[in-house]
């Protein structure tokens, strides 16, 4: 089962990196979103997979039942999902503002902070 998920994670990463390599911010943003999901899946797989036994200790017992799922990756993923969700929301706003203010979403044209013809410093006075 881990092997199958590893392939899925690989496909996710490939798609994310392909999108991040684009010039257009919106595509990069989508790539970053997929990257976040790829990492979540990776974390999930790294905790080893088991089937159908929730990690809940029943009353009267003081250990997990045999074959229970690993709860820690789930907690990690939950944290990571929350973080990547809020970052996605922020980046969406930022992208939108950038599109409004700079009138472009092509990173090649975004040269306001780093002008192409920045003069060299004077060599003497």
């Amino acid at each position, binding site marked *: 089962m881990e092997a199958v998920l590893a392939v899925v994670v690989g496909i996710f990463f490939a798609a994310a990196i392909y999108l*991040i390599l684009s010039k257009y*911010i919106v595509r*990069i*943003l989508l790539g*970053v979103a997929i*990257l*976040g999901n790829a*990492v979540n899946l*990776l*974390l999930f*797989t*790294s*905790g080893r997979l088991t089937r159908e036994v929730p990690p809940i200790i029943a*009353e009267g017992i*003081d250990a997990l039942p045999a074959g229970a799922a690993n709860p*820690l*990756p789930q907690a*990690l993923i939950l*944290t*990571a999902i929350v*973080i*990547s969700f*809020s*970052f996605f929301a*922020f*980046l969406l706003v*930022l*992208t939108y*503002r*950038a599109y409004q*203010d*700079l009138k472009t979403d092509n*990173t090649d044209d*975004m*040269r*306001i*902070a*780093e002008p192409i013809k*920045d*003069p*060299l*410093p*004077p060599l003497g*006075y």
Partner: protein
Amino acid sequence: MAAVSTKIADLSVAMVTAPVAISEWLVVLPVALCILLGATLMMIRDRISLHPLVAIPGLAAVVLVDAALLWKVVTEGPVTMVMGRWLPPFGIAFSVDILGAMLALAAAIVALAGSLYALSDINDSARRYGFFPFLLLLLAGVSGAFLTGDIFNLYVWFEVLLISSFGLLVLGSEREQIDGAVKYAFLNLVGTTLFLIAVGYLYAIFGTLNMADIAMKVKEGREGLPLVTLSALFLFAFGMKAAAFPVNFWLPASYHTPRVVVSAVFAGLLTKVGVYALIRVMVMLLPAEREELSLMIVVAAVATMLTGAAGALAQNDVRRLLGYLVISGIGSMLAGVALGGPGGISGAIFYALHSIVLMTALYMAAGLAARISGSYSLESLGGIYRQNAPLAFVTLALFFAVSGLPPFSGFWPKVILVKASLDIGAWWLAGVLLLTGFLTTIAVGRVFLLAYWRPKAGDDGAPAVSIDRTAFLPVLLLTALVSIFGVLPEGLLRLTQEAAAGLENPAAYVHSVFPGGAK
């Protein structure tokens, strides 16, 4: 009416049962205090006149708490507090050693200086937008990263400081800032995501996230484990955060766009968190892999130093020039990490502390110069020495320090690193370190000549210009620190050596997390 449920099995093996002394709260207080203050300021976001009144005394309190924490750690050894009574490795632990405490103290001092400087640099609209709350949350993130003992928690603090830095970066929403922020935000987010990937693999390999636990498990056996790959991932992720070559392009693209006080705080704090994480993971957790990767690290270090210094030589905008100097400093720290051993690591730690204070002071001084001259461009700057001699003197001291010249604090880490590289016969690394210092001297020397010494074009009899005392005071304070530790480095040298020793042999750190020994 507290009632303890008796249905649950005996948990005393997994939980803290002894009462917690008040002094142990020092471990979490720097972070918790920052969050409380930041949240308070967010609640009163309309009463902007109150913001500095809350933030500055609050930050002063954080500095005091950090100083007390450092004192405690130095006298008693590393201290640990676990969250929610769960013993490590189940609970999240905050473990502080000398390295973390020193860096947290330096960060708090820089944030305090930034808040003082902001009194005259940040106008009402930027305050309404939330400069002070974001500054406090940024410091919470940075301190959390320095103090935590859990590697996933470290990732969370990275994100906390990242999201607050986004807020600070777009303060004012000018076109230039938005442009810089886009590049900064995307590249840093990819960097932290890489960190998360590495954490995932780390968990898959060791089944634990507590750093002390990992340090023990690595010692028990590393046969057949893909630890070198893992270290390379960590190196890449933290290198991106630290702005190491070749993943440093976000820094010169964004650091000159926000308000100068924001640039100052960023230059002091953000990249050093990456360096800290690199030192913590590569030196304490995966030392053998650091050895194996040291060639890669040293190549990155040399490239970072040289591209940083060369980039600084080619800049006309003083803020961009300083951005490249931040990068070249990161190169020196990486060289220390690559060298390893007591010399290399303590040199890197000393350099990080020095760079936190110095880079902030440099940006602030550049901001003051621009306030007098109305520009950051070397072409139009001029005559600052005539208009304000004290500022020129202070800036000269800072320029000496950034070039690594005595008698300022930049001299000592350079000496340690050069000596460490000569000791292992890496004369070329010593040469690059000295060459970087030389190129930096040329770059800042030219700034001093053009902006400070050269009479301003046009008006020869320009009157003296006074600057706000609240803006000059923090620069003076930080310059004083740089000078004091340049003249009297013994105390700091001893502390950095102890910190390096504590990293190479983390027995005390592990003992503070697992007082009863490993199970």
